[in-house]
C-alpha cells in the first residue's frame, strides 16, 4: 500500500446494513428459537382481576396433568423471589412498594402472575394452567388518578396511592403570571399506550451447576445481569446474560421483568433449562405500558406573544408498582416543557399515582413526547388566541441560532441548534403558504372536508446521560458506555460495544466509525454486542444514547489502539514515535511517506512479538469508557396537513414533512429509517392507539385486534429532510435520532386536526383522535 491510497470516508455513507443478511433470510437468532437438550416450558397463570386477595391456590390437579413437571405459586417462591427493582427513587420520601415477581397474597392489576406451570411442551403447560384453582376475594379497583388521590379512595398499597411529588421551579412564576396580558390554561390527557414491539418477550435459562446462562429478549443485558444478581442472590460472576437478536423494544424491553426473575428461579429449582415465550395477548397485559398522564399546563404571555411563564402540574399513572425507571419517566419531561423557547419563569410539579393497572415505564421518548405534546399544543392555541401565525409565534420565542450555547429556564445547556434553518426548510417542502391559503378558502366556503395545518418545532434531550446529572436526579446507575477494540493478527477488527442493539443497526454504524478511525475496510470490522461474556461492560440501549455515548466510546477505544500502534510502528521503523504521522490506516514517517506500517502490519507484528520495543506489551487491544459531559439536543420542524371530514369525523393525513437536525449523520439510510418509524409511532398515538380498561379494571385492548397498531394502509408517505448543526459536545458531532420522530409527530397531527376544526368551535380533541371522537368534538363545538 502506498501513501496515496486515501480511503473514502465511511461516516456519512448510506451503507446498507450488515445485520440484514441474517434478517432477510430467516437465520435470525430470536430467543424463542433457542432449543436445548432437556428444555422445558413455563406458562404463567395471571390474575383475571384488577385487585383482589388470593384466599386459596390449589395446584394439585395441575401437578397430575400430562407432561407437567412442576407447579409453583407465590407462596412456594416467597422466600427466594425478592422484590422487582426500581432503580430511580426520585425523592427521598418516595413510596416504593414491595413487588414480588409472583403475587403471594394480593394482586394489584389484571395480568399479575399468580402461578407457574412447567411442562414438557408449551401446549401441555398452557393446558395445565386451566387445572389450577385460585380463589380470590375481590377488592375495589382504583382506576382513575384523580379519584385515587381523593380522600377515602380504596388503597392500592398500604402506604396509600401517592408515590411521590417532585417539584422544580426557576424564576419568579407568580410575577410572570401577575398582570400577564394573556393566560391560557389547558388540560391534556396522554392516553395509556402499549409499546407493541413485534417480537413478544421470551426468556430461556440454562443452569450448569451453580452457574446460569439467561437469554432474554431484552434491551439491557448488562443492567439485567446486575439486577438479577441483586434480586436473586446468585453471584454476578456466575450469571451470563445474552440478548440474542431482539425484535424491537421501544422501551418495553428496558426492564427487569417478573418473568426473567422467575425463569431463573425455576431453572435453579429444577436444575434444567427452561423457556418462556409470551403470547401477544399476555404481553399486552403484562409488558409495561407507556404514557398515561394528565397534564395541566398554564402559560402566560405578553400581547406580542412573548412567553413570560409556564406552569405545569402533572399527574403520572405509575400503575400498580414502580418498575425499573417508572418514576423517572415523567421527570425526563420536566426539562422539556420549555422546549426551544425562552421565558422568564417555569414551574413544574409531578405527582406519581398508584392505580390497579399494569405498571407504566419507558416507552419511546419517555417523558419528552408528553412534554413536547403539551407545549406544542399550547403554542398553537396561544397563536390562535393572539391571532398570530403559529410559526411566527414560535419564532418570536425560540432561541436564535446565534444564542447557543444557551442555558434554558429548566437548567439544561443546549449546545447547538438552528431552529430557523430547519423551519425554513420544512416550510418550503411543505408549501406552507399555499396550504394555509387553501385551508382558509375551504373554511370560508364551508367545505365539509376541512384542511388543517399542524406544527411541531420540537427539541429533545438524548444521549442519556452524564453520570453526574443522573446522580443529582437520584438515578441508581451511571450513564457512561463502554467499548473495546480487538485487533486480530490478520488485521481484521472486532469492535465490542456495551450498547446492545435491537434494530438500530449498530453492527453497520459502528463498523463505519471503526473503518474511519482505524483506516480499515468496512467489511473488515465485526461488531459484537449483547452477551455479558463477550461484552462484559455496558449500560445498554435506550434514550437515543447508543451513538452519542456508545459511538463515542468506540471512537475513544480506536484512538487508544492508534496510539499503541504508533509506539510499535516507531520501533519497527527505527524512528521516534514523534516522527510518525497517521494517514489512512497507516503510521508513516513524516516527510518520507513510503516508510510506514499499516495497522494490519502492526497487528501482525504484535502477534509475533519478536522485535517489539523494550517494555511494550504485545497487544493493540484497547478499552474505553465514555461518560458524556452533556446531553445532546436534536431538534426539528414537523408540519402536518390533515383533512378532516366534518360529517364522519374521519381524518386523512394529506402530507407530512419532517426536517430533523440530528447533527452529523453516520448513516443516512439508518437515520431516515429511524425518523420514519418514529413518526409512525407518534401518529399512532395521535390517531389510533389506546390501552383501555373497563370499569372493573379489565384491559379491553389485550389483542392486536383491539389495540390498533397502524398498518401500511393507515399511514401516509412522509417527506423527510435534514439540516445538520453538529453537536459541540462530542467528537463526532452527533445527537441521536431514535426517538425524535415519535416526540415530534403526535402534536403535529393533533394540532392539524384542531386547526381544521377551530373555526367550528372545537378547542381540542382527545387522543386518540378516532372518527368518533372527532365527530363528537364537532357536535360539542356546534353546541357551544
Amino acid at each position: 500500500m502506498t501513501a496515496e491510497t486515501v480511503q473514502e470516508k465511511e461516516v456519512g455513507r448510506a451503507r446498507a446494513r450488515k445485520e440484514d443478511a441474517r434478517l432477510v433470510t430467516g437465520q435470525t437468532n430470536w430467543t424463542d428459537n433457542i432449543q436445548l437438550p432437556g428444555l422445558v416450558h413455563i406458562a404463567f397463570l395471571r390474575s383475571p382481576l384488577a385487585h383482589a386477595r388470593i384466599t386459596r391456590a390449589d395446584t394439585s390437579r395441575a401437578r397430575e396433568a400430562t407432561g407437567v413437571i412442576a407447579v409453583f405459586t407465590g407462596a412456594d417462591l416467597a422466600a427466594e423471589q425478592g422484590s422487582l427493582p426500581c432503580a430511580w427513587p426520585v425523592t427521598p420520601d418516595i413510596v416504593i412498594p414491595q413487588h414480588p415477581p409472583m403475587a403471594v397474597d394480593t394482586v394489584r392489576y389484571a395480568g399479575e402472575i399468580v402461578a407457574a406451570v412447567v411442562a414438557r411442551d408449551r401446549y401441555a403447560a398452557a393446558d395445565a394452567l386451566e387445572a389450577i384453582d385460585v380463589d380470590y376475594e375481590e377488592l375495589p379497583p382504583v382506576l382513575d388518578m384523580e379519584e385515587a388521590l381523593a380522600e377515602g379512595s380504596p388503597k392500592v398499597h398500604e402506604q396509600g396511592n401517592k408515590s411521590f411529588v417532585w417539584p422544580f421551579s426557576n424564576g419568579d412564576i407568580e410575577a410572570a403570571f401577575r398582570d400577564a396580558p394573556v393566560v391560557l390554561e389547558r388540560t391534556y390527557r396522554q392516553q395509556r399506550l402499549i409499546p407493541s414491539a413485534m417480537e413478544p418477550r421470551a426468556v430461556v435459562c440454562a443452569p450448569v451447576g451453580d452457574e446460569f446462562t439467561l437469554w432474554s429478549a431484552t434491551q439491557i443485558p448488562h443492567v439485567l445481569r446486575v439486577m438479577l444478581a441483586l434480586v436473586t442472590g446468585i453471584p454476578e460472576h456466575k450469571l451470563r446474560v445474552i440478548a440474542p437478536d431482539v425484535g424491537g423494544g421501544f422501551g418495553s424491553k428496558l426492564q427487569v421483568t417478573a418473568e426473567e426473575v422467575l425463569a431463573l428461579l425455576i431453572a435453579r429449582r429444577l436444575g434444567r433449562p427452561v423457556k418462556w415465550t409470551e403470547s401477544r395477548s399476555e404481553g399486552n397485559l403484562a409488558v409495561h405500558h407507556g404514557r398515561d398522564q394528565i397534564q395541566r399546563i398554564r402559560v402566560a404571555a405578553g400581547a406580542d406573544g412573548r412567553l413570560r411563564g409556564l406552569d405545569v402540574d402533572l399527574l403520572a399513572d405509575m400503575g400498580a408498582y414502580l418498575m425499573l425507571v417508572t418514576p423517572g419517566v415523567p421527570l425526563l419531561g420536566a426539562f422539556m416543557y420549555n422546549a426551544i423557547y425562552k421565558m422568564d419563569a417555569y414551574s413544574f410539579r409531578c405527582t406519581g399515582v398508584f392505580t390497579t393497572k399494569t405498571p407504566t415505564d419507558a416507552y419511546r421518548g419517555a417523558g419528552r413526547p408528553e412534554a413536547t405534546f403539551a407545549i406544542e399544543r399550547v403554542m398553537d392555541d396561544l397563536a390562535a388566541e393572539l391571532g398570530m401565525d403559529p410559526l411566527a409565534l414560535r419564532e418570536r420565542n425560540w432561541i436564535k441560532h446565534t444564542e447557543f450555547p444557551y442555558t434554558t429556564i429548566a437548567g439544561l445547556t443546549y449546545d447547538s441548534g438552528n431552529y430557523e434553518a430547519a423551519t425554513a426548510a420544512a416550510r418550503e417542502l411543505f408549501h406552507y403558504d399555499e396550504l394555509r391559503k387553501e385551508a382558509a378558502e375551504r373554511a370560508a366556503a364551508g367545505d365539509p372536508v376541512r384542511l388543517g395545518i399542524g406544527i411541531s418545532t420540537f427539541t429533545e434531550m438524548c444521549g442519556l446521560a452524564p453520570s453526574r446529572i443522573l446522580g443529582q436526579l437520584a438515578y441508581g446507575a451511571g450513564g457512561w458506555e463502554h467499548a473495546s477494540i480487538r485487533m486480530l493478527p490478520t488485521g481484521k477488527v472486532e469492535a465490542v460495544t456495551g450498547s446492545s442493539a435491537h434494530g438500530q443497526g449498530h453492527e453497520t454504524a459502528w463498523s463505519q466509525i471503526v473503518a474511519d478511525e482505524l483506516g480499515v475496510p468496512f467489511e473488515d470490522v465485526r461488531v459484537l454486542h449483547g452477551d455479558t461474556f463477550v461484552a462484559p461492560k455496558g449500560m445498554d440501549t435506550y434514550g437515543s444514547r447508543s451513538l452519542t455515548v456508545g459511538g463515542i466510546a468506540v471512537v475513544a477505544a480506536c484512538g487508544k489502539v492508534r496510539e499503541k500502534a504508533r509506539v510499535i510502528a516507531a520501533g519497527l521503523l527505527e524512528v521516534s514515535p514523534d516522527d510518525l504521522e497517521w494517514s489512512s490506516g497507516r503510521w508513516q514517517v513524516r516527510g518520507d511517506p513510503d516508510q510506514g506500517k499499516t495497522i494490519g502490519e502492526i497487528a501482525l507484528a504484535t502477534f509475533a512479538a519478536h522485535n517489539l520495543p523494550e517494555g511494550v506489551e504485545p497487544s493493540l487491544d484497547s478499552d474505553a469508557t465514555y461518560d458524556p459531559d452533556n446531553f445532546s439536543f436534536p431538534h426539528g420542524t414537523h408540519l402536518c396537513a390533515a383533512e378532516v371530514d366534518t360529517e364522519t369525523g374521519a381524518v386523512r393525513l394529506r402530507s407530512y414533512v419532517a426536517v430533523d437536525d440530528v447533527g452529523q449523520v453516520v448513516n443516512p439510510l439508518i437515520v431516515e429509517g429511524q425518523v420514519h418509524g418514529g413518526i409512525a409511532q407518534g401518529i399512532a398515538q395521535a390517531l389510533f392507539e389506546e390501552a383501555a380498561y373497563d370499569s372493573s379494571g379489565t384491559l379491553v385492548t389485550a389483542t392486536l385486534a383491539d389495540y390498533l397498531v397502524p398498518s401500511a394502509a393507515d399511514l401516509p408517505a412522509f417527506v423527510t429532510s435534514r439540516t445538520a448543526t453538529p453537536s459541540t459536545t462530542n467528537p463526532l458531532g452527533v445527537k441521536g435520532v431514535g426517538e425524535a420522530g415519535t416526540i415530534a409527530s403526535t402534536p403535529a397531527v393533533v394540532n392539524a386536526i384542531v386547526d381544521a376544526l377551530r373555526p367550528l368551535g372545537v378547542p381540542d380533541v382527545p387522543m386518540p383522535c378516532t372518527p368518533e371522537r372527532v365527530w363528537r368534538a364537532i357536535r360539542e363545538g356546534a353546541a357551544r
Partner: protein
Amino acid sequence: MNHVSMRIDGVRYDDDVEPRLLLVHYLREVAGRTGTPVGCDTSNCGACTVLMNGVSVKSCSVLAVQADGAEITTIQGLANGEWHPLQRAFHEEHALQCGYCTPGMIMAAADLLRDNPRPSEQEVRDGLEGNLCRCTGYQNIVRAVLRVAGEMAGEQAGAAS
C-alpha cells in the same frame, strides 16, 4: 395423533402431530424451520406468513393437519442460490430494522406481486395491510416492493423486445 406429510422449502417431512398443532409451531418446533416467527395470537400481525401451494397464508391460523400434502415455502426457502429480488430490495432500501416482521412481510409481498405485478403505491399499502411492522413506518417497505415490481416489469419488457 394424525400423520402429516408436506414439503417444506423443498424437503419432505413426515410426522405424527396433535390435531391442534398450528402450522407455525410445526414449522418452528417440529421441522426446526425457525425463520418464520410468531408475533400474535389473533392472526393480526402477519409475522408468520408463508406460502402454501404458492399462496400466502398466516401459518398461525392454519393447523399442521390442514397443510397435509402441501408445498410450503418459508423465508428460508425463498433464495434460490442467490437472494430473491425482494430480499435484495428489502436490504438495499433499508426496509427493515429489527427484522421481526420481515419474513412475513417478504412472503406477503411475494404473493402480492404474483397477484398484481404492477401495483400502485396505494395497492402495495392495502395489500400489506395484514402485516404489521412497528419499526419502519412502512415507507421503505413500500419502496422496496415497488422497486421489485419495477424490476420485474423491466425484465419482462426486456424479454419481449
